[in-house]
């Protein structure tokens, strides 16, 4: 049975308005809304949709909304789900940007930002360490990561060629390894 559009539009708005921190942090919100509250998907279907959303390009939460709405109610619903799940963030940031416009230099705002900026740098560093963890024992991984950081810091290219090169090397390695296996 397909749920009424009003129902799921409301659900995706709720998800968009309550998923703090984005990405992986949003999974419990999806389970709570689509599975526990509405029973449109089983928890394992939610987990599967989430894994898909993470493994294709784009914004995880938007991908998840599109894929789950596709499952729940079809294509038209999927398009609307993308719009509704992004809408709260869009409106909140617009409101903040409008309000903040004249107040960046305000004493309290500037004070808060002077504490927030180093914290953000630390969060980026923490994300890099998290990504590096599975590769810490592989000299090849560390060398490739070091090369990528050095090329970027030296300003030789931007991130786009490095991302494409990384994926290309992985793919090339795979193709060569498979050919060898076929031959032997």
């Amino acid at each position, binding site marked *: 049975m397909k749920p009424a559009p009003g129902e799921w539009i409301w659900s995706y708005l709720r998800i968009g*308005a309550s998923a703090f921190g984005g990405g992986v942090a949003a999974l419990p919100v999806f389970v709570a809304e689509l599975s526990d509250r509405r029973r449109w998907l089983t928890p394992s279907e939610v987990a599967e949709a989430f894994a898909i959303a993470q493994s294709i390009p784009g914004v995880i939460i938007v991908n998840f909304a599109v894929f789950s709405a*596709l499952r729940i109610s079809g294509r038209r619903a999927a398009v609307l789900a993308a719009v509704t799940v992004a809408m709260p963030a869009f409106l909140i940031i617009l409101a903040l940007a409008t309000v903040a416009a004249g107040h960046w230099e305000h004493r309290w705002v500037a004070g808060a930002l*002077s504490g927030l900026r180093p914290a953000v740098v630390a969060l980026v*560093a923490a994300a890099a360490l998290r990504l590096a963890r599975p590769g810490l024992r592989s000299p090849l991984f560390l060398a*490739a990561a070091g090369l990528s*950081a050095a090329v970027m810091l030296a300003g030789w290219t931007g991130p786009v060629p490095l991302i494409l090169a990384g994926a290309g090397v992985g793919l090339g390695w795979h193709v060569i390894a498979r050919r060898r296996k076929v031959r032997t």
Partner: protein
Amino acid sequence: MTLYLRLFWVFFKISLLSVGGGYNMVPLMQYEVEARGWLPPGRFMDMMAISEATPGPIAVNLATFAGYQTAGLSGAAAATIGVCLPGALLLLTLGILAVRLRDKPAFRAAMRGLAPALTGLLAATGIRLGAALIPEGAATPSLPAMLIFATVLGLAVGKKILPLPLLAAAAAAGIALSLA
């Protein structure tokens, strides 16, 4: 190309090249936005803090803000649509087939190659943003800034504390220091 089209295209490209979401998008976003003069590094960090502290996808928060700062409401809309579209289009055209893509050995191999490249990029972005903390004429960031950096890094990595409480504490520390 008009500015709106350029905003749309740049954010479409950023999104199309980012798999796994979250911080994986940050190096591309920071580079593209700074290279075009849309946001200085300082404002980018402010925006990341705000994105972590407000609901919704971080990528949408950042796109909306950068678009708005660059070209007002229509710019915000163009950038946001651009960032949401690649994944949505892929899923609408591939549909359930996307499920199988994930299990393809070739796809996994490409992701394995991507991991070290991305690790390096994130580290480089951290260094670039860190360099933007250094006040003009100084050699290092201020002592409080370095202390906040070390504390947040230690708590995020060692104790796995979530970003939101860490940012709240950092903002409070910043305000307290500015009043002292």
